[in-house]
């Protein structure tokens, strides 16, 4: 039969796969804990899936401090906070990074973080959680969730792009806006909070108008930006999208020149991410050393390229593209984390009722 050799070939393929897999558990040996340095030992950093830093920086840190850093990154900021909250009595690590200001109160209420006497670097003081003031949760980075517009789209049509939240509800901009859901996306929630900060108790009526003006709500940020947005590289049909203040730095055409998108700086909500040593950690000194390292100049300078956020430390240079195209708002919307914690349930439920048909 002509076909004979084929099964044999498949068998080889399969065997190769099988053999490589047999080593799965064998190769997964834990590196023995390194010693030396002040803090030393193994430190487990619990964080969310967007955490990323250049490998070189991590290696340098490990060499200098004698710490063997193990990163456990999974889920989004909400999942991370919930994970920390339910394991507060027996934490899965020594230090955590990535709880943001929309979840900060939950972490503090559940006693997730231990007090440290770390010195907060100049500039970072503006971002601490009111009431905590950096005792438990130390700000590491900040970024703003802002409405973005496809400037090319508007230029081609000789239209002025919208500028404010109010503009988005203007019939002149009907069917142009797409935003991720506040229920399943953290920028989506930030945008809801921006509208709460702007309109106070009247935010539901604003959303009524917004939805009446043809706003499309989709599941997640990547969905909105890559599928629905005209400026995201996909075949989208919406020139206005919810994204970040840093997004325009990523839409500069290859030859250079101006970015093809812009952030509307009057629509921004500020997000801050925190780090802290976990209560009940096996290695609190090592954890504190990691927090300090996150605030060091080198790591702060690497934040924009690695995690698309701005450093909190003053005087840290930004990458050239960011310097040029990623403009930060002077006066973004903010809300007290305690306020967010107290009303999140309520707001989300109202928002759900407004957007769910």
């Amino acid at each position, binding site marked *: 039969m002509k076909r004979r050799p084929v099964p044999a070939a498949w068998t080889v393929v399969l065997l190769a796969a099988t053999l490589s897999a047999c080593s799965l558990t064998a190769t997964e040996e834990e590196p023995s804990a390194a010693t030396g340095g002040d803090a030393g030992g193994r430190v487990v950093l619990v964080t969310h899936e967007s955490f990323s830093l250049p490998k070189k920086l991590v290696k340098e840190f490990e060499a200098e401090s004698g710490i063997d850093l193990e990163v456990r990154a999974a889920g989004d900021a909400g999942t991370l906070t919930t994970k920390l909250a*339910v394991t507060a009595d027996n934490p899965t690590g020594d230090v955590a990074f990535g709880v943001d200001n929309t979840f900060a109160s939950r972490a503090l209420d559940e006693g997730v973080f231990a007090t440290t006497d770390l010195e907060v670097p100049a500039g970072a003081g503006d971002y601490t959680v009111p009431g905590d003031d950096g005792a438990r949760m130390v700000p590491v980075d900040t970024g703003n969730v802002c409405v973005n517009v496809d400037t090319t789209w508007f230029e081609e049509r000789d239209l002025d792009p919208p500028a404010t939240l109010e503009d988005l509800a203007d019939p002149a901009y009907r069917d142009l806006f797409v935003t991720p859901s506040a229920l399943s996306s953290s920028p989506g929630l930030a945008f809801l909070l921006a509208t709460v900060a702007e309109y106070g108790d009247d935010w539901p009526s604003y959303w009524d108008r917004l939805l009446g003006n043809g706003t499309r709500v989709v599941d997640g940020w990547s969905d909105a930006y890559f599928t629905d947005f005209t400026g995201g590289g996909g075949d989208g049909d919406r020139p206005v999208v919810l994204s970040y203040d840093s997004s325009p730095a*990523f839409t500069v055409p290859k030859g250079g020149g101006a970015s093809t998108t812009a952030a509307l700086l009057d629509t921004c909500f500020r997000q801050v991410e925190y780090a802290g040593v976990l209560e009940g950690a096996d290695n609190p000194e090592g954890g504190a050393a990691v927090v300090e390292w996150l605030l060091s100049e080198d790591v702060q300078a690497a934040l924009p390229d690695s995690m698309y956020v701005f450093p909190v430390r003053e005087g840290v240079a930004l990458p050239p593209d960011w310097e040029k195209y990623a403009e930060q708002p002077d006066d973004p919307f903010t809300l007290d984390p305690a306020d967010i914690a107290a009303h999140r349930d309520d707001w989300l439920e109202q928002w759900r009722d407004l957007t769910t048909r």
Partner: protein
Amino acid sequence: MTAPVRRLLALAALAAVPVAVLGLFFVVPVSGMVARGFWPDGEFAPDQVWEVLTRDRTLRVLAFTLWSAAAGTVGSVGLGLPAAYVLHRTALPLRRGVRSALLVPFVLPTVVVGVAFRQLLGAGGPLGFLGLDGSATAIVLGLVFFNVAVVIRVVGGAWEQLDDRPGHAAATLGASPVQVFRTVTWPQLRPAVVSAATVVFLFCATAFGIVLTLGGSRYATVETEIYLLTVQVFDLPGAAALSVLQLVVVLALLLVAGRTRSTPVVRRPATPHRLRRSDVVPVAVTLLLLAAIAAPVLALLVGSLRVDGAWGLENYTALSTTGQRDALQVSVTAALLNSLRTAVDATWMALLTGLLVAVVVTRRSRSRAERRTRRLLDGLFMLPLGVSAVTLGFGFLITLDRPPFDLRDSPLLVPIAQALVALPLVVRTLVPVLAGIDDRQRQAAASLGAGALRTLATVDLPVLWRPVLAASGFAFAVSLGEFGATSFLAREDFPTMPLVIFRLLGHPGELNYGMALAASVVLAATTAVVVLAVERLRVTSVGAF
């Protein structure tokens, strides 16, 4: 030792391993998380839980869950039955290739399928005129897209082995094809169909990503609601209430399904027949289904080959890198290897446990209590499909956290969790076949002096061989595509393909987006090839020894 006692001991010994696995990795974590809700501050406070159940919203959410799952099941069975017939009973050219290709949707990450679906159904897409984007219909279509393969596999595997002589006899006596199907084929096929439908229903009822992506987050199911209450709102009593509700519904379903399942039938593998004129309708349905499944996959393929508005392979060559601005910790090719390794582990775990379960639940019972026990076990192993991944994931963290089971950071948790998801599929593929073996054959073998192992090798194994391969392909595919539990448990330095794809999609940069599409295509192709390879291993002569 008397014979009945020995039987019971043997039953207990066989069941011990699977039950221990299920207990440790499923029952303990889920009860731990639910207990958190019932005892919010260490005090038993069931009123908070009760309050959630009486909300209007809970009722609406439950109703939508049941409706969408039922619609998804009906659609999958309706389209899957004709396809199972065509692909397993007729000599359709290329049917093996088609069969493994149909498993592709099963492994595609929901995020990616969501993107592909939305590119087709969205306002600017080729099917945009249907206005389905963000509708409940889109969700149901997505559910069918993902689950029709389950029906084709489970039912096809059983159909392949049906004795076709009674059908021929009926036809000779003047029965129309419809009559033959209704009176001869259907009664024999029913256990497999019910099995498949049960699994599909559970998959649909616990679907997460697809409901959010295709429904534009406008529709809530019990599963999405549990996520919302646990992660966004941190209302653990509420989440516990919904988890219990979910369990009750699943148990009720399993009870109903269990009653209609078991009818042993005589099997004799039939050779596929050439296509006949009466096969027009099922063939047409199969081709339509293929087209419907191919469309989003093709959209992905096309997208992965577009670079800066022109055709190119750059997205593929970039797979050996960590992406634009180092979006990833490891290269996509390394992640593919991780996925394959994890999948092999998950597959043998699921197969081993699944085989034990299948053998235990299908052996003839001598007493009522014994039958009850077997039936209970049968249902028990379906449960992991019906319970929220969020509850299970957080449950792992709070219960497996102390010696001797301090497993929170074990790299083995990922394949174990994936094996738990694949287990019901394995069991459901094997049980109908094993149940179909006439116990008198085993008795005959025994009376001729064959021991238990030899009986297994000469009576069970020849029949079981093909379904075991089918089940292993299935388990492999499930593991390759699993996202929910894996994203929760995987370690940063050992990510699997779906995690890498998800990460690429979350990072700005056109190359990262293109790479995500290319990686999805690679994952899909790998799955199809591996499944095809596994099925090629079928040794037809095994029945001879």
